[in-house]
């Protein structure tokens, strides 16, 4: 029962503590873990004895993302449709969490990347610590920020979401608290005590209860001196531009006027990332601004299917090779430059795959009592 031991379950009266337990792979989500989480979350929602669900990770990571190794394998063997099932399950889990009627508390004590953000940020409470390292590194892998990231990134202050999503910038605990990705900050030494207190939830309203406890533990850390969050003004000026090309040229202008390490690193990150990824990511975040989380996931599913099928670009396989397998960190992107990635090519990624036999849009699990705030139009 590998899947069971990959997600540890602790029963503490009305609280369930789930621990992602694949420490050697930094708790990367494999398809068994996703299925198991989905099963558990749905069951807890129905179980009147469960009030709080705590999600954390074993070891130095909360969760480093979705485990795409098998997906890339499938793609290489020409069976990308198997990969589509993986993403369909993962996005369904993201959706259930985003629309969860009970309280999910995620303890982000370590690395939180990509799919790791997808299983935490959509929940009610997210606890950062001094060990948190958050990033959406997909554009460097030939993918795009998925798992509902086009929903939550687009709702960050100003154009910080575009910055985080396009550059893959790493944020620490103080930064994710400041921008709203985390709701609380608790030093890691106090986590055990926090968990114990949370387990004392009695018959009181779980949201108020959790909020009271968390407020008592939370701290207000200072942003480090060179934090990107101090540069929101520059980020807004540059990342609000309509196209990736304009974003880069505005950054370059800023860099000439006021050169600094942060801005050069930002430009470098964009120059290293996959051009096709950058363009579809920007468009995805921009569209996410007007969509509900469900619609975001449906769109992202269309996009990820196009990425896997690779009609326009095979950057996912190439990125995976360069970053994970051969680790030469020198991917050969195709299309090679931003100017080669034309608008009509970007457009393709957002279309349904009606020509693909048996392909269907992501079918979101039905939810009752859907809060209206997560429903949007179009």
């Amino acid at each position, binding site marked *: 029962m590998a899947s069971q031991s990959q997600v540890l379950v602790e029963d503490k009266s009305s609280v369930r503590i789930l621990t992602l337990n694949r420490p050697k792979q930094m708790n990367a989500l494999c398809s068994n873990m996703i299925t198991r989480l989905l099963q558990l979350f749905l069951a807890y929602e129905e179980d009147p004895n469960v009030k709080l669900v705590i999600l954390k990770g074993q070891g130095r990571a909360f969760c480093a993302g979705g485990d795409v190794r098998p997906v890339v394998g499938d793609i290489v063997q020409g069976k990308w449709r198997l990969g589509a099932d993986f993403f369909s399950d993962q996005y369904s889990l993201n959706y259930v969490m985003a629309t969860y009627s009970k309280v999910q508390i995620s303890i982000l004590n370590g690395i939180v990347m990509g799919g790791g953000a997808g299983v935490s940020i959509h929940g009610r409470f997210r606890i950062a610590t001094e060990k948190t390292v958050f990033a959406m590194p997909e554009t460097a892998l030939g993918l795009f920020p998925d798992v509902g990231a086009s929903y939550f990134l687009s709702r960050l*202050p100003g154009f910080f979401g575009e910055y985080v999503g396009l550059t893959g910038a790493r944020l620490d605990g103080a930064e994710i608290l400041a921008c709203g990705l985390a709701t609380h900050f608790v030093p890691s030494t106090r986590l055990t005590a926090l968990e114990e207190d949370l387990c004392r939830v009695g018959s009181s309203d779980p949201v108020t209860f959790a909020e009271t406890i968390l407020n008592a533990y939370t701290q207000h850390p200072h942003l480090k001196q060179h934090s990107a969050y101090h540069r929101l003004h520059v980020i807004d000026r540059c990342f609000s531009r309509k196209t990736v090309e304009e974003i880069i040229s505005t950054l370059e202008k800023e860099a000439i006027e006021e050169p600094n390490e942060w801005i050069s690193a930002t430009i470098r990150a964009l120059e290293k990332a996959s051009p096709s990824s950058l363009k579809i990511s920007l468009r995805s975040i921009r569209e996410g601004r*007007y969509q509900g989380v469900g619609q975001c996931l449906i769109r992202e599913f269309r996009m990820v299917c196009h990425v896997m099928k690779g009609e326009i670009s095979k950057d996912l396989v190439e990125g995976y090779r360069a970053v994970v397998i051969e680790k030469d960190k020198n991917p050969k992107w195709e299309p090679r430059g931003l100017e080669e990635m034309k608008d009509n090519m970007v457009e393709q990624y957002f279309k349904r795959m009606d020509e693909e036999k048996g392909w269907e849009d992501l079918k979101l699990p039905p939810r009752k009592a859907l809060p209206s705030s997560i429903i949007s139009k179009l």
Partner: protein
Amino acid sequence: MSENRALQRAHILANHILRSPPPLPSNLSLAREVCLQYSPPELSESFGGFDAKEMRRLLDGHNTEDRDWLYGLMMQSNLFNRKERGGKLFVSPDYNQTMEQQREITMRRIWYLLEKGVYRGWLTDSGPEAELRKLALLEVCGIYDHSLSIKLGVHFFLWGNAVKFFGTKRHHEKWLKNTEDYVVKGCFAMTELGHGSNVRGIETVTTYDPRTGEFVINTPCESAQKYWIGGAAKHATHTIVFSQLDINGTNQGVHAFIAQIRDEDGNICPNIRIADCGHKIGLNGVDNGRIWFDNLRIPRENLLNSVADVSPDGEYVSAIKDPDQRFGAFMAPLTSGRVTIASSAIYSAKVGLAIALRYSLSRRAFSVKANGPEVLLLDYPSHQRRLLPLLAKTYAMSFAANDLKMIYVKRTPETNKAIHVVSSGLKAVLTWHNMRTLQECREAVGGQGVKTENLVGQLKGEFDVQTTFEGDNNVLMQQVSKALFAEYVSCKKRNKPFKGLRLEHMNSARPVLPTQLSSSTLRCSQFQKNVFCLRERDLLERFTSEVAQLQGRGESRESSFLVNHELAEDLGKAFTEKAILQTVLDAEAKLPTGSLKDVLGLVRSMYALISIEEDPSFLRYGYLSRDNVGDVRREVSKLCGELRPHALALVTSFGIPDAFLGPIAFNWVEANAWSSV
């Protein structure tokens, strides 16, 4: 039954007076009644009909992504007054601010958008693509706040375009880039206290002083003060001045000049007096002012000289000898104002309808059956009849506004006359439609409509002036009829077929309408076209023959027009409504068979039939019989029922982000809960 209810009611009232708790009827359970709950219409309404995203592309017509980019810029900035209601983000101006605050924040929003590159190329780029981008972005600004789009419109479309179109190279080099970068802030002084639509009658006078090579501008009397000049009261540094040009005692007619009115620090320049127009019923983010000129001297080069010039020694030169034609050449570029007004009116109607229809899909009132659930507002046929025809009209006019923009951006000297006529008619009809729609929407959402945060009521004040500025609607409609008259007379005189002004249908035989109108006939596009063409044709013939008769009796042409104002009005409306119908038919024809085309067909039939239902001309002049109009009315009601299931998808297709609608469009229970007080 009713007796019981009356008793019950009396009982409750009595208890109110006696302040004792009402006795519980024995058949009621003691459990607490479930409170009203908001249920998002998305949960209950079918969305399977057609692709809303495709429909949105069709309606917006162009630059969809640019629009979304700008919506995003506004939603992400605190300058746009972000607030949360019922768990959702909204952006809309705070109309409770003082006039001064509204003016300042509007200006700050303009700076913010400037910094983001929104106005890039608005004056320095040319060609249809650049113009369409500009129009799309201006429309989005107007959806956020009419003051914002008007303040931008004055600066770019009135001041900027006047420099661009009336000026020559020297003006372009000096002003266009600086205007685009807001180094100068322009305004446009045309209207005077005593003269509005009649520009030729303005009284401001400019003379030329050859000794110094300067023009001297004067406001000779109080009625000559410039009035309603947007931007003049606070922010503008420069203005276009429209004035009579007097050269050696000869009046050369109205000309346009550039004058500086404030220095860089915002101080009013010498020989200029400026007063505020004061608080208005809407548009308080725009600083309208009044200007007087006291012997203001400006360099000779400041005459915008594309049409006429004055040489250094004071000689008047113009390539156009006829002062009438000269005046026409001056006015031609002003069409852009009517184009933007027409399309912004439609976006305003879209905001109103999206709010009112979304509310009507979540608010219930009265039960039809005793103890039955209360009925959703939009399930009342009367409520459908109030809103759905206006929805169909808004759709139809949306296509017409797009069509107008297209012919405008592709304009040539040959199309100027047609653009003038079509834009006049559409500006009037679309702005009237917006005012009527907003009023209906305000009433349809009940008391919630009077809260400014719910927008529909406030928008009435904000958009009201559209029926007046850039040409009073009634005057514009008369101009349409006069132009049609002139075209008719000229074709008949030269014995040439009609060509232009969309009168080509008059070259073929007068259409014959069937006596019996079945449902399928009424929905047939050819029939609808025939009815509209027949009305236009007949009214034009009547109008020309009435005018000719009066002229035959020695009346002047002008006074013959005046006497026949009723026919002129009917004709203007017939022309414009037919033009609108044609644009829907064109859009429909381009679509492949499918659900989108089907629903657009329903919308088009609703537009055609409600227009017939609402215009007494069809009965008055006997194009339709009493039986016919009865059939039309029945069909309208049938169409209401058929459009009802598409209502949500149809307003969703407007593509206006949730944040730009009012809280009552969403969870109005939560938005008003005690916890969010």
